[in-house]
């Protein structure tokens, strides 16, 4: 996946796979409460500069909450 900026990468990730946007975000665009998305280990809610440039080794992690037991 290629994107010029961190913010663009987070958008492109949701468009890269069929239906992924609907799995990560509800119909109002809010991220579902039990899903977190990290960019190089930083929650996407805490990214200070979404316009910063990407590098070849950047990593996006999608993590669901684990509960129960």
């Amino acid at each position, binding site marked *: 996946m290629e994107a010029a900026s961190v913010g663009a990468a987070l958008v492109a990730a949701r468009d890269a796979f*069929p*239906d992924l946007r*609907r*799995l990560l975000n*509800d*119909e*109002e665009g809010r991220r*579902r409460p*039990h*899903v977190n998305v990290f960019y190089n280990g930083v929650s996407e809610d805490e990214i200070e500069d979404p316009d910063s440039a990407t590098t070849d080794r950047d990593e996006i992690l999608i993590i*669901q*909450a684990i509960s129960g037991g």
Partner: protein
Amino acid sequence: MDTRLLIGTNTGLFIAESDERRKDWRISGPHHAGWQVYTASGHGDEVMAALSSGVWGPTLQRSQDGGRSWEPMDTPAFPEGSPRKLRQVWSLANQDGTLHAGVAEAALFSRKGSGAWEMNEALESHPTRERWLPGAGGLCLHTILPDRDRTYIAISSVGVARSDDGGRSWELKNDGVVAADADLAAQFAESQACCTHKLVRDPANADLLFQQNHVGVFRSADGGNSWERIESGLPSFFGFGLVMHPKDSRTLYNCPIVSQEVHMVAEGRLSLYRTRDAGDHWESLDRGLPEQCFSNVLRDSLAIDAQDPAGLYVGTTGGEVFASSDEGESWSRLPASFARVTCVKVAS
């Protein structure tokens, strides 16, 4: 002719196949392990499943090869700014190339071919819409009976709605659906709610309807304009599932449940009830079914096939599925222990 069952559970979809004797079953799955499957439909090699997850929300999946591989489908969505949320897809119905989806919260979506989903605006803007209340399963539009001239839908806990103009307007058809118990009747009257659990229609007579309701079992011979109670022989008026015999609209089957407080099969044993006279009398069918059972049978976990003799299928929240190849006279258990069964559908 082979029979294929789509068994939805809390932990995925299972597909059970048998030859025309419907005695020995091969079971594949789980497909979509970990997802709840509240409805599914199958025609030929095409299988559709409505999935939901507490983490990922609701979504539709389709297989074109009998369940060997799957791809996500476009999922209905409320328009931007709508106060409603898509909680779950509860029902799917095909009509001449148009796919209908009934969802919670109380909406009907339709798409022609591979076109976009369109929400039924007349239902959304129904004059009574703002007082609709959810049942225990949410505001679920669980039954769609489409027809060119007349379409019925059923919503918990709104009741039956009828459209005679292709979905451009809807009229609620709940007159006469009243609890026999005065306190229960007063509760429903106060909230103006009507909790239809399942609705069936005679395919040859659009006026003849039957419903399993929260407050009883009812019949209408006039397209829902009036309803009469039909519970003679039933151990309980409460229940969820109801199916009609494919060739005899006077023959129906249901599964009585103890009460609104106790969602467990009536009398502590799994027993289906059959009427052969359009509800005037009901008789128990339990040969081969467990004598002790303390599970529930949900609204879409009772199914009937179109073979001769007709096959019946019932799934329990205890994770068992039973099949009858002789119209309910005798039963055998499918060779698997599933999770909570949320639907059993017969693929055509």
